[in-house]
């Protein structure tokens, strides 16, 4: 069960109040009519599916009904940060890779949770 901090309500609430809405930070092509089939298909269907840090769009469906972003580890399920629409993440796969200490704590969480690599 996730305990998610809604950046608009400023409160931690239970997972059941929220819905995940897929990958965050996907820009709609500025001129869809000018898109090739490749570009349009990529926009519609092709997603990052990382094992590790992932940026997601969530909606506080039975709360403030606002969309916001979540940075979450898809292996340990640890939520690293939540931030408002239009903002950029402070924690990314690249920033985590630069901090080996954090990487080992992630591995520790994975161990505790009994997750197999």
């Amino acid at each position, binding site marked *: *069960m996730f305990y998610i901090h809604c950046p608009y309500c400023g409160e931690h609430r239970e997972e059941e109040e929220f819905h995940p809405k897929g990958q965050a930070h996907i820009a709609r092509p500025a001129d869809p009519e000018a898109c090739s*089939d490749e570009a349009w298909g*990529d926009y519609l*269907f092709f*997603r990052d599916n990382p*094992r590790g840090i992932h940026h997601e769009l969530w909606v506080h469906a039975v709360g403030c009904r606002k969309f916001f972003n979540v940075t979450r580890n*898809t292996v340990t399920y640890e939520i690293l940060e939540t931030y408002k629409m239009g903002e950029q993440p402070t924690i990314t796969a690249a920033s985590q890779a630069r901090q080996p200490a954090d990487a080992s704590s992630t591995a520790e969480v994975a161990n505790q949770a009994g*997750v197999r690599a």
Partner: protein
Amino acid sequence: MQRYSGFGLARHALSHHENWERQWRNPTPKKQYDVIIVGGGGHGLATAYYLAKEHGIRNVAVVEKGWLGGGNTARNTTIVRSNYLWDEAAALYEHAMKLWEGLSQDLNYNVMFSQRGVLNLGHTLQDMRDIQRRVNANRLNGIDGEVLDAQGVQEIVPILDCSKNARYPVLGASWQPRAGVARHDAVAWGFARAADALGVDILQNTEVTGFKIRDGRVYGVHTNRGDIEAKTVGCVAAGNSGVLAKMAGFKLPLESHPLQALVSEPLKPVLDTVVMSNHVHGYISQTDKGDLVIGAGIDGYNGYGQRGSYSTVEHTLQAIVEMFPMFSRVRMNRQWGGIVDTCADACPILSATPVKGLFFNCGWGTGGFKATPGSGHVFAASLAKGEMHPLAEPFSIDRFNTGALVDEHGAAGVAH
């Protein structure tokens, strides 16, 4: 390979069953194979078996990072059916169904395939219209199916609450009598044993860490046990397909989600068929041991954790108890999750890739188990020829750019 038979069973009884030979070898990897299959689940092992049996390609390695059938093959709810709406999907799943019907004999291994029928319940007028359309489409494709009204459903499943005042009123169902269940572990073991007997090397605890690619052509894989070379590589890695594709330098239109199932304590026989409900997202059957096997929906977020969220289990069990009031005091024994690789159109990907010689068989999402023999059969033919089998052609990665999706969402049901 020692063939299994009633006579063999009696003979081994004389030596207290202590001298059965191992079902497959544990070979050290060779430097080179004709074909490498990445992923030792049901689909991968079936691919290796049909490569050896039907195409005479026996110099094959199955590379598995864990143990055989330890992923989704062991984590599904064992349901086998072929009542899909669209021609392309129906042809593929019915191909599998025909192979299921002779599989135990073919493999000389009892996969406990039991054609006990599957009911897909309709709870609303729209459900019933969809069911009618799907059953008509099935019949046109030569797949058995009937539309039942509530009374017809009640006759097959007396313990189902079909009363008018039920929380989820049952208006009717589609009924596929040839559908049923099979023992999932036995499917992996049966294919592994039969493939091994034909000379396939099954390499467990061998994880692929990268592909060897030169001039846009694959010529092998890097593993934690050294490099292995082959001109043809088939990836059948379910939830981890996206990770493999990234190693090879391209993206797949897949997202990996946890899908949960759970089993109860063993009960006396009460349910001799499979009941599925897409509307409330629960499905249930009873094993020969007596456990109720219950499947839930997927978690909406991406995850590789092989476990699911509690709220999903709670929703599913609420629905199951509403439909089967007599199960309200049944205790659940175990709960687990598998990682399913879902496509936007709920259909698999059987496809060549931008890398020559590298093929992917993935995206089976929440419903891959039922297709195991058919998927392996079609994928083996594709690997042997170097071009996709006609049944696999509609399931190319290209469909996500051309727009020719095979949209089985809601049609064959989200639940599998």
